């Protein structure tokens, strides 16, 4: 399963009023291409801050907040895991699209192959955290993750290959922020 397929699958399983934070780089572009929705915040920079932005949203809203994160991104902002685990917002769902590398910059290996991200999340205090290795179980894994008590993290292993890169999002940062805030 490619990362883009996993992003599209996750978006297809969400409710209309779910709030999404899509990680900077390929994940935001793939989320935009698969299903653009005003209630998705598309990050363009600030790598490492996906969980922190999602936490600020989860502390401010009643709706479910879904963070679409990358493994390298999560490792860069590992403190965000501690904040989510420490504050324990029940309405936060954290999906890590784990390709084991820095795909956006050329596929350099990331330490996610050696660091158990689900165990780290559980240790930080997430109410539920699992790793899913096999693409045939991705849908069931996501359904279980969405129904689990929050905060919940699913570390979903996806292909490192990127056969059909998504284009940049054709909206300005200011437009993206205003549209998102107005939609909530």
């Amino acid at each position, binding site marked *: 399963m490619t990362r883009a397929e996993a992003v599209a699958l996750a978006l297809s399983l969400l409710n209309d009023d779910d*709030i999404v934070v899509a990680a900077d780089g390929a994940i935001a572009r793939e989320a935009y291409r698969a299903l653009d929705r005003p209630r998705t915040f598309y990050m363009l920079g*600030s790598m490492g801050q996906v969980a*922190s*932005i999602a936490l*600020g*949203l989860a502390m*401010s809203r009643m709706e479910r907040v879904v963070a679409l994160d990358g493994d390298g991104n999560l490792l860069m902002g590992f*403190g965000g895991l501690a904040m989510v685990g420490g504050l324990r917002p029940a309405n936060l769902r954290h999906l890590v699209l784990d390709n084991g590398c820095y795909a956006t910059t050329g596929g350099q290996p990331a330490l996610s192959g050696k660091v158990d991200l689900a165990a780290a999340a559980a240790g930080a205090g997430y109410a539920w955290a699992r790793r899913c290795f096999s693409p045939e179980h991705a849908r069931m894994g996501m359904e279980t993750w969405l129904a689990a008590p929050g905060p919940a993290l699913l570390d979903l292993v996806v292909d490192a290959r990127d056969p059909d890169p998504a284009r940049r999002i054709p909206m300005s940062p200011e437009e993206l922020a205003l549209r998102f805030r107005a939609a*909530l």
Partner: protein
Amino acid sequence: MSASRRLDALRAAGVEFVAGVPCSYLARFFAGCAELPSNDFLPAVREDHALAACAGAWLGGRRVAAAMQNSGLGYCLEVLTSLHLMYRLPLPMLVSDRGADTDYEEHRILGSRVRRLLTLFDIPWRDARAGAEDDDARWLVETSERDSGPAVLLVGKEADS
């Protein structure tokens, strides 16, 4: 009324959510924050994460503020430039004013350049004054909302009220 006049002033100016990392120069302010309801204060583990959480809370419809030691500004540059300045998100910031010649060595190199650093990125700043908490808070919130971006109140030890 909380333990901090500066926090009360910020709340009176409309701030609903605070995220930050403590500084001894902001001890009173953080003592006040500790009494807030759990969804109104985020004790962040690093300053850039505090800023990112403020971005999330503002996007979620709230009025926010961040607080930190000025040493944390180094961590914040990426988030300030690729989140708050780029997306144009209001962000009132309370930053301790450390780094005077009499301060400890580890505070001097960054601390003595904070005003120049903020000016370099066109971030408005002003020095907090003890006894003028309401005026400081109004300036901070109004400036960040007028500019749709960060604004900084530099708080010296004597201004932590």
